[in-house]
């Protein structure tokens, strides 16, 4: 084995992730090559350093918050069928449109302002839909730490 091959295998050698034959070949090379031996020592120190990194403790209430979020996912799962949120969404959207039309016809709101209001209402409707039963691509409900904290 030449230095280049040995050095490319040094991490796997340190981790004992090579075949017995490869391990022996590298060990033999290291016993006679100062440069590769230095490299091996350095990588070994780095591995030890990473292994000694302290565990980072979460804040005391994380467990309760996680259990609450999982509990919320569970409650969402029990809702009968997948149609209900869509019906609710359709209803909320229809109401939003009706309110927007009423505003447009009865007030002096400019079209731009009206569009903004309509978008706000539609956004709220989407948010309610997401919260009540919608989910991301994985089917998980969209409940972020920020939205949780807000409750």
């Amino acid at each position, binding site marked *: 084995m030449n230095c280049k091959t040995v050095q490319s295998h*040094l991490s796997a050698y340190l*981790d004992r*992730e090579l075949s017995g034959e490869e391990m022996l070949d590298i060990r033999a090379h290291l016993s006679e090559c100062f440069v590769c031996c230095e490299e091996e020592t350095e990588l070994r120190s780095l591995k030890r*350093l990473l292994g000694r*990194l302290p565990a*980072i403790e979460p804040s005391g209430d*994380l467990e309760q918050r996680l259990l609450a*979020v999982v509990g919320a996912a569970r409650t969402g799962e029990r809702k009968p069928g997948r149609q209900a949120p869509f019906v609710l969404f359709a209803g909320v959207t229809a109401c939003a449109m009706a309110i927007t039309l009423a505003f447009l016809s009865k007030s002096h709101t400019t079209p731009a302002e009206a569009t903004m209001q309509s978008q706000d209402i539609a956004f709220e409707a989407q948010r309610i839909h997401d919260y009540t039963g919608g989910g991301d691509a994985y089917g998980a409900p969209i409940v972020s730490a920020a939205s949780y904290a807000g409750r």
Partner: protein
Amino acid sequence: MMRTTLQIQVTEMFFSVTTERVPARLNRAALFDDLVKQTHRQAYSLAFRLTGNSSEAEDLVQESLVRAYRFFHRYDESLPFSSWLYRIMANAHIDMVRRRGRLRTTSIEGSGADGSSTWDLPDPEASPDRLMLESALDEPVQTALMAMTPEFRTAVLLADVEGMAYEEVAEIMKTSVGTVRSRIHRGRKQLRSHLLKNAPETYRSLCDEL
């Protein structure tokens, strides 16, 4: 008579199915809650190392646990739950970084300065000098980790911090052992270069101690 017997059997089957469902769901919920209690601390620690700050770490653990709960019926009990959770977490983290479209190389909170993070009790066997060096190097290590691609960072953390074998890392990262071997090797070398550039004296002193 035959018909009646059959009806009774079917009725019994129906009731046995319906009555078993409720406890099964409750058991599943209780089992999952226990798994959350057992694994969340370790998962948080890994999430912090992956994301570099406590709020993203909490989000990552939370998102991963919700996904894990959704797909709990697919969980193969022959694997440790933590490995399965880490798989979800590793993928969620890589997705998160890609979605964001940038790597966090600055603004490393935590590492002791963060009020919500505390550290393990010191090892009584270790020399005071080494402990001091180790804590001095913790922040540069985290900064160096954040400068890596999420794939390299995840592979190095799973192997070196979590102490997993390459095959386990490959299983978690849904890739080959050869790819894991390369990611770990290149990741360690990147980490070393970063530390030699940004905290050379502390790093050198600690390497001599170790």
